[in-house]
């Protein structure tokens, strides 16, 4: 029986040669992401902005979104978003944070209940006051930064400092790209988005560490090979694994995205994006950046790989 393979054996793709495209490309994409983040901003959910989120199901047939919007518009709640959520009788209502502190938030739900009447099942009600939302935003930022720092320290211990720095640059790249994606798609950015980013950080590092591990091993084995060639060899050797793992992870994530329900859809969407970005960055950012970090400063030019091959004991 022939087994499925995505990548033929013994590929000799010259990834390092592509760095003159991938680096500027990533740099531009990163700047664009940051500019979009600054200009468009993120579509912050109530976790970080405060406000009220109500998911309802109408009990008397399909929901009339326009009517619900009209009725809610009459009670002075500021910005109210009404959208269909999953089935045709399911509606998600988002109401902006009210002026007047935590107490004012509480009356919102009562007023909405009054207006929408009896023929409604309240499936989910979330109210986050301004105090808590500010804390959550702070905790989220601190969390991502701490994670990056902790990993930096770990990789520094296990590898050399160039690896640690390279891994962090690649990971920051992923985080920026993910934020850019959130800015473009205007996908709601909430606590589970932070969870998604941290998982992407974890996954991307996982991928990067696997490649680095092989680079480290090859550094000992091929003492005279030039660094770019050595990086190419290492990436090619791990390429089959990289693609297979990304594929199985994506299989699981697509199952979640399609069948896992509305509530976690934005979370899985961000994760799927992160798998692509994380895989890309381990190959095209994390590895080539080692050249610039002068991991092996003594050798330079792109000599043929076979030239200096010597098995280390």
């Amino acid at each position: 029986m022939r087994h499925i393979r995505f990548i033929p054996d013994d590929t000799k793709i010259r990834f390092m040669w592509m760095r003159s495209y991938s680096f500027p490309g990533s740099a531009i994409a990163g700047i664009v992401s940051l500019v979009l983040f600054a200009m468009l901003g993120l579509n912050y959910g109530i976790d970080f902005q405060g406000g009220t989120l109500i998911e309802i199901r109408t009990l008397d047939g399909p929901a009339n979104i326009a009517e619900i919007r009209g009725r809610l518009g009459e009670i002075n709640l500021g910005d109210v978003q009404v959208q269909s959520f999953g089935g045709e009788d399911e509606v998600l209502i988002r109401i902006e944070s009210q002026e007047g502190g935590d107490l004012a938030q509480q009356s919102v739900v009562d007023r909405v209940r009054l207006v929408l009447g009896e023929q409604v099942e309240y499936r989910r009600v979330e109210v986050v006051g301004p105090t808590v939302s500010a804390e959550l935003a702070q905790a989220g930022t601190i969390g991502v930064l701490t994670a990056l720092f902790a990993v930096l320290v770990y990789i520094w211990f296990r590898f050399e400092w160039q690896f640690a720095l390279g891994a962090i640059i690649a990971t920051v790249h992923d985080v920026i790209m993910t934020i850019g994606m959130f800015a473009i798609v205007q996908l709601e950015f909430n606590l589970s988005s932070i969870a998604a980013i941290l998982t992407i950080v974890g996954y991307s590092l996982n991928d990067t560490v696997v490649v680095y591990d092989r680079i480290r091993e090859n550094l000992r084995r091929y003492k005279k090979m030039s660094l770019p060639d050595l990086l190419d060899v290492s990436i090619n050797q791990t390429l089959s694994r990289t693609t297979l793992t990304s594929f199985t992870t994506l299989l699981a994530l697509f199952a979640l995205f399609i069948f896992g329900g509305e509530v976690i859809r934005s979370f899985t969407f961000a994760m799927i994006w992160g798998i692509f970005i994380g895989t890309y960055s381990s190959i095209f950012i994390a590895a080539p950046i080692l050249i610039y970090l002068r991991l092996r400063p003594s050798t330079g030019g792109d000599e043929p790989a076979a030239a200096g091959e010597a098995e280390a004991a």
Partner: protein
Amino acid sequence: MLHFARWKVGLILAAVVIGFLFTLPNFFSAETVAKWPDFLPKSRLVLGLDLQGGAHILMQVERESIVKDRVDQLRDDARKILREARIGYTGLGVQGESVQVRVRDVAQLEDAQQKLAELAQPLNGSVFGGGTERDVTIEADADGLIRLTLTEAGLNQRVSSAVDQSIEVVRRRIDQLGTTEPSIQRQGDDRILIQVPGLQDSQRLKTLLQQTAKLTFHLVCTDMSAEQALQTRPPADCDIRYSTDEPPVPYLIERRALVGGEDLVDAQPSFDQRSNEPIVTFRFNTSGARRFATVTEQNVGRPFAILLDKEVVSAPVIREPIRGGSGQISGSFTVESANDLAILLRAGALPADLTIVEERTVGPGLGKDSIAAGETAAIIGSVAVITFMVLAYGLLGVFANIALIANVGMIIGILSLLQATLTLPGIAGIVLTVGMAVDANVLIYERIREEARSGRSAIAAIDAGFARALGTILDANVTTLIAAVILFQLGSGPVRGFAVTLAIGIATTVFSAFTFTRLLVATWVRSRRPTSVPI
């Protein structure tokens, strides 16, 4: 790498079997599980509020309300002390967190200072032995101005004890709702987290939680009418309070309360015998009853006011002395509001105002849908991954799948054992682990293929494949684990559930890669003696 001591084999298999044993209770009904013999594990997965439905409410003790109460109290106490000591003063008033007063005769300044010093109480558990730290500081200027200021430490202690007391009151109130296993915990310095699983009506819970339920009885001031007081200004000892009627009616009442809710021993909803309207009957303890009797004896014919949270609920006239220590409150109650008031009075008043700062409620319908969606996604995701592994690696893929199933079994077993909460993102974490767990096998198998291609014999390749891949697996998983731990630290509720399953998934993945998969492959190698690597 392929040799296992017999005891190791035993341990590995035992770990897997025990893992599965712990998942068992989840597949049977609670009644069936209860009948099992004691040596079998019985704990089931704890479902998060997002899966079983329920309310998550975070309340904050309002520091400002405590400061206000304290500073008002301080002013009243200072007035009392100065009057009793016959020290002339002027300009007694509250300013922020302090009380100011000017002593008329500077000669009495020292005396006043000494008398007022008793207001500064040492703090409990002060770190400085002997209690040098106090809850009030007293400063005086030479020109007779005295300033009493509440200290930060003193206020912190008040807030902290208000949280403790509030937790008790909240617990008593929620117990009256008859829900199962509510969890009420302190969070941080000034917050209380309330989680009530399976609650259908969160509105009622919120109504019960948001009221301070401070009940007081006051005499109505007869010096002037409320209307007059509104136009001019109320007499020194009186305040204007509004009734709960629509529109509110103003009452001028004496500031000092005759009796308070703390003297209540019981409160019950009932019906008025004549009008048949819902009312709340109450009973005082002995000292409360005695005080109430004395006051009513002295004031027959005068109206008094019953105040709930500074609003006048009812203002009847005292027709005769009330000696029995019991009475009734009639307002415009509905059956439910009378019932709720009785609950609140029985549970006692909150020591400070509580504000809801975060609320997340999931109805039981959405919870069921989420479980169903999570299960579907988990099954489809697993089947897809399992099928793919067989297609990619054949027999070794089957081994990977057996390890994968053992892995998921152990995750669920550990979650049940630790009684960790399973949330919807937690299910996502398990599904994601399914995707990533095979990574360990992919790493090993790809390494074996490489070793085989570089000319090693099948058995040597397998041996070297395992040996070289395991270091990579460890490094790669530790980094993900770091992210999971931080996620756990910072997240709450559903996100925390995700971090827990992710972390446990990483641990079991590493375990099964290092032991179970290796054991499976080793057994196969020994029994078949393969001459070529079948991948």
